[in-house]
């Protein structure tokens, strides 16, 4: 595959697990019929059973009913569907106010922005310097016209977890629907919709060693949601389009393979790397020190730039990510780092390391050694930091 590549960008994409591939294979080559109604031909019924089996097992992991879980093409679609679907359903009936945070991932952030241009009022809540949302601030922001609150379960870059349970309860008390983007937590961190009164949950397969292009949206029973992908009557008539059955089966398998033991192994790697990185002078951890994703370390190194770090690491066989403006497609510094009160400098030298199933402690030591060298080399070139 990538030879000796040490892949530490598992919050961007993950390597497929072979067991997932094996589970998917028959649905490409044998049971490839469309999922038909119960009155269809037998091959179609078999497809439908596979689809519904996958649905049932993922829904169970969320504590949801089978018919509350829809398959989508990924978390981008799920979040678009949640925000725009609720906006369409309630914009005329209840109100046009939506609340979210400044550090959401792009699907939520830009769905909100796009609704903002179509006559909806959007409140973007601040977070503190660790990335946590202030619950009192949220409580105060909810008005009678607020139709939806969307707050991520964990941040894509700095890993900070939000108190989803409390947020859900506040929204319930104040009669606003609550959506959470759980792309980075599901199913590693528990979320039971039987206990947490959340109405909509975005989940995806591509970060848990499942296939890309598959995700899901949990929709609590009787949640007002207007269909906007028009066509056939698939997915309880909420999302048209021939079902991606191999994808759904692969997603279910990927969910099944995520275990507590594995998560604890990822956490050990994360902690060891964090410790080693913070041993480098002028390094600081981004995000919350303890309330964070088990597989993410994000550190800013002063006086050096992220794309340069990334390229040097690439030459040494490591794949990581950075919040530097030079690396982004819009040439803007990470909105997350800026959102936690960071400056350009903090974003400029930020590096994200995310672990997955196929990483080992050897990878941790290897990347810690490599980045120590790279930072040293780049600081020699840098005009900054020498007079201190």
């Amino acid at each position, binding site marked *: 595959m990538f030879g000796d590549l040490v892949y530490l960008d598992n919050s961007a994409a993950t390597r497929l697990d072979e067991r997932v591939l094996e589970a998917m294979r028959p649905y490409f080559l044998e049971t490839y019929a469309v999922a038909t109604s119960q009155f269809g031909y037998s091959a179609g019924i078999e497809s439908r059973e596979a689809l519904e089996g996958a649905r049932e097992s993922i829904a169970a992991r969320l504590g949801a009913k089978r018919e509350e879980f829809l398959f989508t093409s990924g978390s981008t679609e799920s979040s678009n569907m949640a925000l725009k679907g609720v906006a369409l359903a309630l914009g005329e009936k209840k109100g046009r106010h939506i609340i979210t945070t400044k550090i959401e991932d792009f699907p939520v952030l830009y769905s909100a922005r796009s609704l903002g241009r179509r006559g909806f009022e959007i409140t973007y809540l601040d977070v503190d310097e660790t990335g946590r949302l202030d619950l009192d601030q949220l409580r105060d922001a909810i008005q009678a016209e607020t139709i939806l609150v969307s707050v991520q379960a964990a941040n894509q870059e700095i890993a900070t977890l939000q108190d989803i349970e409390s947020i859900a309860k506040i929204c319930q008390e104040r009669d606003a629907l609550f959506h959470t983007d759980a792309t980075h937590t599901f199913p590693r961190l528990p979320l039971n919709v039987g206990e947490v009164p959340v109405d909509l949950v975005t989940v995806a397969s591509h970060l848990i060693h499942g296939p890309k292009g598959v995700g899901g949206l949990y929709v609590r029973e009787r949640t007002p949601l207007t269909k906007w992908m028009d066509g056939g009557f698939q997915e309880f008539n909420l999302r048209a389009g021939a079902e991606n059955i191999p994808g759904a089966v692969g997603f279910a398998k990927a969910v099944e393979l995520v275990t507590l033991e594995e998560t604890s192994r990822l956490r050990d790697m994360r902690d060891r790397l964090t410790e080693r990185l913070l041993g480098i002078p002028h390094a600081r951890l981004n995000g919350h020190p303890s309330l964070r994703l088990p597989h993410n370390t994000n550190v800013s190194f002063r006086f*050096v730039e992220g794309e340069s770090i990334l390229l040097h690491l690439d030459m040494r066989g490591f794949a990581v990510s950075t919040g530097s403006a*030079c690396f982004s497609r*819009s*040439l803007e510094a990470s909105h997350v780092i800026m959102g936690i009160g960071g400056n350009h400098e903090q974003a400029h030298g930020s590096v994200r390391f995310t672990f997955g199933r196929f990483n080992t402690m050897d990878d941790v030591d290897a990347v810690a050694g490599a980045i120590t060298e790279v930072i040293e080399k780049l600081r020699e070139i840098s*005009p900054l930091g020498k007079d201190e």
Partner: protein
Amino acid sequence: MTQLPYTETVMEHFKNPQNVGRIENPDAKSVEGSPSCGDMVALYLLVDEDTQTITDIKFESYGCASNIATGSIITELAKGRTLEKAKDITWKEATEALGGLPPIKTHCSILAVDGLRAAIENYEEKHGLVKERVPTTKNVVVKRLKRVMNPIVGLDLVRTKLVDDIEVEDGVVRVEIKLAEDHQFAPNIREEIHEKLDHLWDVEKVVVTYEA
């Protein structure tokens, strides 16, 4: 082998940059920085006073690969030239020497070129070689905007016709750019325009407006 967006020459200069470091007691120096991108370049010159030739030049970079590579190539190009000849080094010449840069990266590389000019100006100021302060006119603004890159194509704003209108009145410069406010690169371009105009001695305020 995967195709990286950078040429082999760029990668060579990035991996092993030439003329890196500081000159103690330089004859001139400059520090150019971009608040939007965050990149920064420092340049140090030693100049032979009789021949007005750059005898030594070093740079430091707090920046990305293009920034480091351009710093490296531009110091190579400038070393041994007279100040007048060194002033003629353009961004285009530097990029060509590197075998080209991706369009989106041009703004990081132009910093080093600006840095060289600024260092030369610094020398001229110190040695009483500067002319009078030029008032900021529309032409001056156009000239400065030619140093703001349009990241879509990697050419400047003026040449790519992104500048719709310029007004200069009572220290206020208004620049209208032909992009929607929510365009992917709009915030970046706005920052760069500010960077090129804000510090001009007779400019009090710079206002960037977008296409309706």
